[in-house]
């Protein structure tokens, strides 16, 4: 019999039992991280999944401090008042109608312990303001916050091309009341920058007659319109950009990438493109980069003064082939 056997077993156990979760705090110094090179080159208008929010410009009011934008906020500000009082200003775009005015206003009222209002009462509450050159309604509510502190919320909801924009100032009752004229002035100063890649936000929908078997759905944040065909096996996305939207080649290559195809030179492209009426059509087939399924794509670009329109029919090859003519008619008959 081996005498040190029990000792061995104990040692083994000790080893095994130290495998508990380690909760030690680490402290270390590292060189500053180099900024990453430009990420995904693929970030244009119809990529609703990863939209690059349109640029907003504003005049920063005195006493406001800009915070870093977050996942949700395109802009964020802090306002400091006397005696450590604070208010927070945020600008948040959300796709779709985002619940509508009434439910949002009542949600804010709930936050300041106020009873909900009805649709007609809401109208009475609305205060007209000017926002980026358009009129909008401001809702103001005050009351006791979650911990009984006096709280005031100023909020404006504005709908632009399928997106609801929330402009909100929240904070200490007195401070916010005192800052209200500043906030209203700030709203007036806002401007949507029309950069090359941003969609022209003030573009209204052209007039068109979609074929009977297309279903209009709420598109991504940066689509003018979206239709699905055959239960989503194919879809038509429509977007627009200021200027020439980066030109035909850039957009066709963007589409090609969505189908997992390589880039084409503008010469190759010119050969492949067909012009019908005021629209230039391209066709391609490949593999949908997102679903991994074989897919076909028919794209069209229409140049209007100061504005480019992009139409994309993409999906299952058979359906795309069947819908091609209807799509082409739809594009050519759209009135701007």
């Amino acid at each position, binding site marked *: 019999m081996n005498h040190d056997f029990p000792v061995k077993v104990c040692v083994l156990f000790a080893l095994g039992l130290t495998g508990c979760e380690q909760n030690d705090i680490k402290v270390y110094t590292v060189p500053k991280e180099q900024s990453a090179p430009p990420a995904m080159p693929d970030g244009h208008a119809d990529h609703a999944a990863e939209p690059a929010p349109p640029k907003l410009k504003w005049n920063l009011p005195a006493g406001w401090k800009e915070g870093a934008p977050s996942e949700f906020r395109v802009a964020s500000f802090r306002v400091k008042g006397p005696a450590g009082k604070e208010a927070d200003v945020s600008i948040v775009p959300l796709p779709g109608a985002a619940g509508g005015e009434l439910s949002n206003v009542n949600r804010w009222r709930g936050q300041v312990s106020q009873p909900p209002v009805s649709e007609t009462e809401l109208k009475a509450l609305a205060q007209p303001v000017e926002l980026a050159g358009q009129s909008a309604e401001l809702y103001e509510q005050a009351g006791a916050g979650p911990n009984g502190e006096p709280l005031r919320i100023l909020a404006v909801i504005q709908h632009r091309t399928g997106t609801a924009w929330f402009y909100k100032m929240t904070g200490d009752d007195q401070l916010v009341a005192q800052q209200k004229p500043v906030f209203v002035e700030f709203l007036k100063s806002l401007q949507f920058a029309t950069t090359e890649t941003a969609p022209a936000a003030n573009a209204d929908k052209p007039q068109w007659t979609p074929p009977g078997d297309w279903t209009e759905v709420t598109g991504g944040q940066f689509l003018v319109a979206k239709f699905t065909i055959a239960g989503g096996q194919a879809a038509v996305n429509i977007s627009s950009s200021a200027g020439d939207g980066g030109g035909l080649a850039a957009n066709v290559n963007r589409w090609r990438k969505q189908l997992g195809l390589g880039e084409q030179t503008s010469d*190759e492209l010119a050969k492949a493109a067909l012009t019908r009426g005021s629209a230039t059509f391209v066709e391609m087939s490949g593999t949908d980069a997102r679903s991994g399924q074989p897919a076909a794509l028919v794209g069209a670009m229409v140049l209007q003064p100061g504005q480019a329109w992009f139409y994309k029919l993409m999906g299952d*090859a058979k359906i795309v082939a069947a819908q091609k003519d209807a799509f082409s008619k739809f594009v050519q008959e759209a009135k701007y």
Partner: protein
Amino acid sequence: MKALLKALPWLFLALFATEIIVVMLPKKDSAMHTADFGRLPVLLNGRIQPFDSVARNSLLQIRSTGDVPLEEVPSWKFWHHPAKLKSTDWLLEVFFKPDIADSRPIFLIHHPDLISELKLGDKGVEKSGLRYYTFAELENRLAEISAQARTASAIEDANRTTYQKQLLKLANGLLLYQRLKSSIQPEDTHNFAELLAKFQAALPAGLAALRAQQAGQQFDEAALKRFSGLAQQFDEQANFAYPLTVPPTDPANKDAWLNVGASVLSTLRGGGSLAPAVSFFARMATAYGHDEAAEFNSAVSGYKNWLLTGFAREVAKGRSEFYFNQIKVFLHATIIYLVAFMLAAGALLLFGPAPQLSESLRRSAFFLIGLAFVVHTFGLIYRMVLEGRPPVTNLYSSAIFIGWGACGLGLVLERVYKIGLGSAVAGLAGFVTLLIAHNLALGGDTMEMLRAVLDTNFWLATHVVCVTLGYAATFVAGTLALAYIVLGVFTPVLATKAGTANLGKALANMVYAIVCFATLFSFVGTVLGGIWADQSWGRFWGWDPKENGALLIVIWNALILHARWGGLVRDRGLMNLAIFGNIVTAFSWFGVNMLGIGLHSYGFMDAAFKWLMLFNGTQVCLILLGLLPVRRWRSFQLVQKV
């Protein structure tokens, strides 16, 4: 009588060997050299394969058979070979005589609700209780079928009803058929050569008009219209065709095969002439459509000769795979295994009452197993050469290999013990595994390419082969144990003398030896698998279902051995444990794939799940049988009486 008994094994061997040789001899082609066409190489699923493989795998997916029977023969008339449309002949019709192809009943629908939903009750042809429909009959239901299929495809696979699964299978079959139809010539073409000539004629003026239009200059509208109308047909074809049939014109880029439509359209960019393959295909199409055998044959041989200049390897690959498709080695092996199993079973049962006949049957079975093993090995190696891979690359080939391994073990046992049991086990295992393989082949191409992480011949040759041999050995041990229990309970055979001990003892020794063998291979195989995992994604063991399955076999075999060494079980217990090994192995082989999770999963198979449960049920019943008290065993009653 004695002479006859002596000659019987040789007679059996000669009979089946002759059949195999006849099958393997080269066949004469028909007047239209369709077999030559079937040998031509194309690129599909990432690999070069002959047209015949495209045809066969498509038919398997659509009709669940490799060819199309042309007449109804009652199944009891087994000697009557019904006239058949061979796979390549069917494909030629689909390509070049679509009207006739549309009238072939190939779409299997057997869900009664689906038949009534599509109002097909009065249509279709019934064959052995299954209803087959032609494309023509289904054509005006296409919209409805695809609408319903869309709804069904939105549902997760595991949650689909049988109705939805059938519908999806039908919809996929219809899609595949339509894609095949426009694979060589655009749909509804009657004279492909003429269409191409028209396109080429319209090309220069059309291109010029197009350029002018784009530059905003005056252009010939008629020329552009004529040209774009034609181009559109090829464009649709380019999007829809199934195999890539046109070899690359640039010999440096051997992989850049195109389909016909894409190849025709590529002349737009290069401004060059048509690829030679397209012209040959056009000649074949027109000749076949007009039944001109001489012209068709000359086009096929012309194309083959053209291919030989730059694509000799591809031609050779097409030829050898075509041959492999034709001889159907595994089908013949299956038949021989079945006959051998029945002979061996007869030998076992007649062991006591008619020893001489029994010995003659035993030798017959042994000879046939030997022949089947040779045929099986030939098929296995042929596949390996075709694929350039070790024997096991997917579930299908694992079934083939398990059968082969089990048969090999059975042969060795028979050589050592000479009592017919080894042959019986080999015959049964060979028959069942090849049957499973046949059903697995219905999913489509069995030589599909291996995804990145599996693309390593070293690990496929070591880990996969070891683990699969472990499966095979565990199954052999389980099957021997089954024989022990069935023979022991129902017959007095176990008590008969075999060599130095009685048969029961000999069986116990066999099972023990095989379990040792299984332990060795499954342990080494499993650890090698862990090392592979460590090499490819950084952890030796991840408790992945497939890994756990292999581990279960190792644990179980180790348990059997330790239980035996510790004297916890004797022969009967050993047998029951070995039968449970069948359940463990079946879970590891198939069950884990049905969990639908994990890195190794191949997908959910519900039909297979039913069979697996049935299998487990029978094994449990046999274990219960094995637990009967000894006095109820016929074999041991005798022992006690003696």
